[in-house]
């Protein structure tokens, strides 16, 4: 490919500090390929997305006589992270601290240098908790519009995103029905929709497939796989098959500690067998805790 000439497209934008700047948005490249054919290639300037990083440094959460999360340090970049662990391993506690709704006993969490307890961090966040409620008078559409407003999305864009997401999660027919009439699976799909309504850079999903039927699970996996291309997706579950096919990285927790972290491709074995083996090797931790 031979570059003939290129043009830059600029945009006049406001940066994080509120200062107006001019930024190069993309380059339009006129190239000639090997066959001599001229082509136009648009290269978007998205270094920011490429460099996004969520850093956890020695994060600990201690209750009276139990350490729920024990000095975990991690760096998350773009991609899908599957967080596996048994009930009581500390997954939900870790997720809540990543969302800023639980204060750590010690340690720090920052996304591109932005601390977790700031509005800026929250504006990049999407969260689906393990259990969530709803205002009884809300319909599915009302709920998404309300959450969109709280996430700072204007009315027009919120309406557009709501319609789009209701279609994606197959709730368009039930949009005007009250949430109290929804089944468990429908509520879960609504929860997923609200988590992604602001197109977050950090998406934290705690047991997201609970209550979903197999067809919905497959659709959910495809949706997450797509989101993981441009965002940090942290998916906590104790169902191995949820992460087996889509996670780029696997994290395993046990008794508040991180027992394994690595790329999915490093695990050549069946993930479930690997998980059970990892869990079995750490039974000593249980025995020590009980004594």
């Amino acid at each position: 490919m031979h570059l003939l000439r290129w043009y830059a497209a600029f945009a006049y934008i406001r940066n994080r500090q509120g200062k107006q700047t001019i930024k190069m948005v993309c380059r339009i490249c006129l190239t000639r390929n090997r066959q001599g054919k001229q082509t136009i290639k648009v290269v978007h300037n998205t270094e920011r997305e490429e460099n996004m990083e969520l850093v956890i440094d020695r994060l600990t959460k201690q209750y009276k006589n139990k350490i729920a999360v024990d000095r975990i340090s991690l760096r998350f970049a773009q991609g899908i992270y599957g967080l596996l662990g048994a009930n009581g391993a500390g997954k939900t506690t870790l997720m809540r601290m990543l969302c800023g709704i639980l204060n750590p006993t010690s340690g720090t969490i920052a996304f591109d240098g932005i601390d977790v307890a700031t509005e800026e961090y929250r504006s990049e966040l999407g969260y689906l908790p393990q259990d969530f409620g709803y205002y009884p008078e809300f319909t599915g559409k009302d709920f998404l519009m309300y959450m969109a407003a709280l996430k700072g999305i204007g009315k027009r864009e919120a309406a557009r995103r709501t319609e789009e997401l209701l279609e994606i999660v197959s709730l368009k027919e039930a949009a005007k029905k009250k949430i109290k009439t929804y089944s468990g699976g429908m509520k879960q799909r609504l929860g997923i929709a609200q988590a992604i309504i602001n197109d977050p850079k950090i998406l934290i999903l705690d047991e997201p497939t609970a209550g979903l039927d197999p067809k919905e699970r497959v659709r959910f996996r495809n949706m997450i796989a797509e989101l993981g291309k441009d965002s940090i997706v942290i998916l906590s579950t104790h169902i191995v098959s949820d992460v087996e096919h889509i996670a780029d990285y696997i994290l395993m927790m046990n008794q508040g500690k991180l027992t394994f972290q690595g790329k999915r491709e490093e695990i050549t074995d069946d993930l479930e067998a690997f998980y059970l083996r990892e869990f079995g090797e750490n039974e000593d931790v249980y025995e020590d805790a009980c004594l």
Partner: protein
Amino acid sequence: MKKIDKKELHTFFVAPEPERKRAFMRKIARVKRGRGLSFYSMLSLQCRYISPKVWLFSIAFFGAVLIANYYEASAIWIPVFAMVPFLVMLSVTESMRSYQNGMEELEMTTRYSLKTVIYLRLLVLGSGNLLLLLLSAFFVSDQFFPSLLYMLTPYFLTAAGNLWIVRTFAGRESTYICLGFAALVVIAEYGILTRWNFFFEERYLGAWVIALAFFVALSVREGRTVIKGSLSLA
């Protein structure tokens, strides 16, 4: 130079495949969203989502004040004064309904978090109630200041108690406990109105002012604790 047919132009270049289109579109959406919602937009949003029953009760209260004023019957004033603690109870439980309906986790993680939501609800409902009581004081009797004092004191007593209850007891149970507390305040009011009505004499005005100042301070303290507590679960 050969004249190029406009229709042939599209054959000259292959339409480029979009690269990182989603990230690019996201960037534009983020720039638009960067300004966020104004304070008044958020305020009107919260007003829209406040339950109709709260507004209806406020209208009913004011209606009762007007009726009592029209008939000038002292017996009617007792139930009117009894409505004041329930007015504030409805407002406090409405402000805290995120907790009662299990929405607190979701709202804590949004850009305009639970702290903002509760603050705005308390602001809207508190200001509305105070305005309502101010207006009502004109109709209660010829003496505006004492009338206002006799309504504001149980108002802030109930507010302080209810705010303490909602931050101590989680879930829907807190609504019933707040209702119980409001009922206790009504019983105390009734007792004072019927048996110890000498407390409404002019010589006791100073005591009412001190009591009001105390309950206002307590309400403000409880309100601040509630708002601060809404930043995180623990």
